[in-house]
């Protein structure tokens, strides 16, 4: 094949590509216009020459946010290093809170400590799943409700470009619960007040005109429930946790003879699961 033959061959190839390509582009436009028209309002269907429209997407705090219950979860950054991927995020509560009093508690040495509302764990996005482009999945999540970083143990060397999506598949939200209940030394020394929370009568001792009642709070999952026990009704003085830090409460009864069925009140917070799966927006974070 001489030089002229080669030139003609190339020209012929290009002519073929251009001819078929130009027809193909028109076909593609026609096909896609037909597909788009099915999802457009009727007024937009009449013309196939309408330029691509703009879709408005609303946000409350940040375009990358996930609204989970009354909280915006905002992914801030994502990093891959060795066999770990981590996602930093921020939680912003959207709940109305004007006139909510400052929350204080007595800390060590009777010193009053203040709790900032923004520091409270509004939600606990406990379980996350990372999907790779190869179809692998890795579970991860934050270490506790106060953490703001979700970590995944992945295969060594996984790069960010291999991450297809990240979903939050279990979210817990705190709610208050008060449960009156009774404990009986003989008949019912243990009572489940809510699923996963058991109250157990440990000890009863008379001390002169008062009676000390010791109750243990047995939590199936320490991350999803916080409870305290107080006396219910008249006859009780204040109740305190044991000094050792165990989840045992000492109550003082001053109402005369202690009833067989000891009236108590479990008060606290349970973390309830919120329905739904939430996909983390990876496009806008670094």
């Amino acid at each position, binding site marked *: 094949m001489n030089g002229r*033959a080669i030139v*003609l*061959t190339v020209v*012929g*190839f290009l*002519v*073929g*590509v251009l*001819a*078929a*390509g130009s027809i*193909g582009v028109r*076909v*593609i436009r026609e096909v896609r216009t037909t597909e788009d028209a099915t999802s457009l309002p009727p007024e937009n269907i009449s013309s196939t020459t309408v330029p*691509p429209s*703009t*879709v*408005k*997407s*609303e946000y*409350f705090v940040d*375009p*990358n946010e996930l*609204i989970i*219950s*009354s909280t915006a979860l905002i992914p801030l950054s994502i990093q891959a290093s060795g066999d770990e991927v981590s996602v930093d995020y921020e939680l912003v*509560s*959207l*709940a*109305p*809170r*004007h006139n*909510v*009093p400052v*929350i*204080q*508690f*007595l800390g060590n040495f009777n010193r009053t400590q203040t709790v900032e509302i923004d520091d*409270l*764990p509004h939600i606990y996005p406990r379980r996350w799943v990372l999907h790779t482009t190869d179809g692998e999945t890795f579970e991860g999540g934050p270490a506790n409700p106060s953490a703001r970083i979700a970590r995944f143990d992945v295969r060594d060397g996984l790069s960010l470009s291999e991450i297809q999506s990240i979903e939050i598949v279990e979210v817990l*939200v*705190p*709610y*208050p*619960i008060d*449960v009156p209940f009774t404990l009986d030394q003989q008949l019912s020394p243990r009572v489940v007040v809510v699923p996963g929370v058991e109250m157990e009568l440990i000890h009863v001792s008379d001390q002169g005109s008062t009676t000390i009642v010791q109750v243990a709070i047995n939590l199936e999952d320490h991350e999803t429930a916080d*409870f*305290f026990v*107080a*006396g219910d009704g*008249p006859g*009780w003085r*204040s109740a305190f946790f044991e000094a050792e830090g165990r989840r045992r409460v000492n109550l003082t009864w*001053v109402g005369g003879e202690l009833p067989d069925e000891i009236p108590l009140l479990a008060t606290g*917070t349970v973390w*309830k699961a*919120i*329905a739904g799966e939430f996909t983390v927006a990876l*496009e*806008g974070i670094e």
Partner: protein
Amino acid sequence: MTDDGFDFGELLRSPYDPDPDRKRSREGEAELPWKPAVIAAVLGALVASAFVIYAIVTGPTEDVEAAPGTSTSTTEPAIEFVPSTGLPAGYVEVAPNVGMRSEWLDVSATGIRVGVSSVVSGGQDPDLIDNPDIAYWELDASGTTEKMSSQTLEIAAIGNLTVEFPVLAAVRDPMLLAYPAEGTRGTVETRVFDADASVVGPLEFEINGTTIIVDQLTIGDVYAHVAWHVVEGGLPATIDTIVTFVGTDNPSTDEPDETLLVSPHLTGLLQGFGIPPLEPRFGFSRSEQLVRIGEPVGTGNEASAISVEFAITIPASIGDPIRIPIGAAS
């Protein structure tokens, strides 16, 4: 082909066939290599067609690297991110710029609990908007409507409410009804008792047509307990109770400093753990342990009398019910 001088080829040749003489006349010239060019054109068309078919089958290319607010796709509409001025999905407006949504429902042998969350509208500052007072809630289920037992506001997630209802025989297609409080009316009723009073009550108070009974107030040296209820037909209420040991004083301060027993939220402190310091929500009854402020009453710190203030608040009026679907039961 010739046979006996007869040219059959000439006989069969069409008048439209190329002139063999002309062909022969070109044989001496350099012939154009058109066959490879035609084959190449056909191949090119096939390649382009293959791409076209691939493009149609696979659809538009997604631009996964696009930053929010931008789009480099030429076939998909661009996404413009705009601040919302409304409520997130599923929230029902219960007050100006505030919405509520039910999050879960639990049915047990002791009662029914529903979790409700609250949000402000987009563009509003949560620090500047009050959590709306819901006077009371009803649960509409299985054709019957039941009034709430209590409502409690969460401390760790301000705006999360747990609403409790009595046991129902059946719960089908449940719906929450929120009755918003429109303004409030308040009064403070004071009663004075002997210094050695330990159990008082019942006491009756009336405010704006609502009758409230304090069933029993038990007073100890460092503790107290109060139980009250609203008489049937009355509006829901909140009561803050302050027991003052008159004449007592903390000698370590120069200011008069009488010993008090008060509703826990008035201290602003978490007591022990988990006793909400938040203002109680409206209810039809309540049983409450009071918390001591100041020196214990006793030798050297005796009271001459006991004064008890009951700060009672009720809704000025109650708005029309707002229906909140219960969809996400867990």
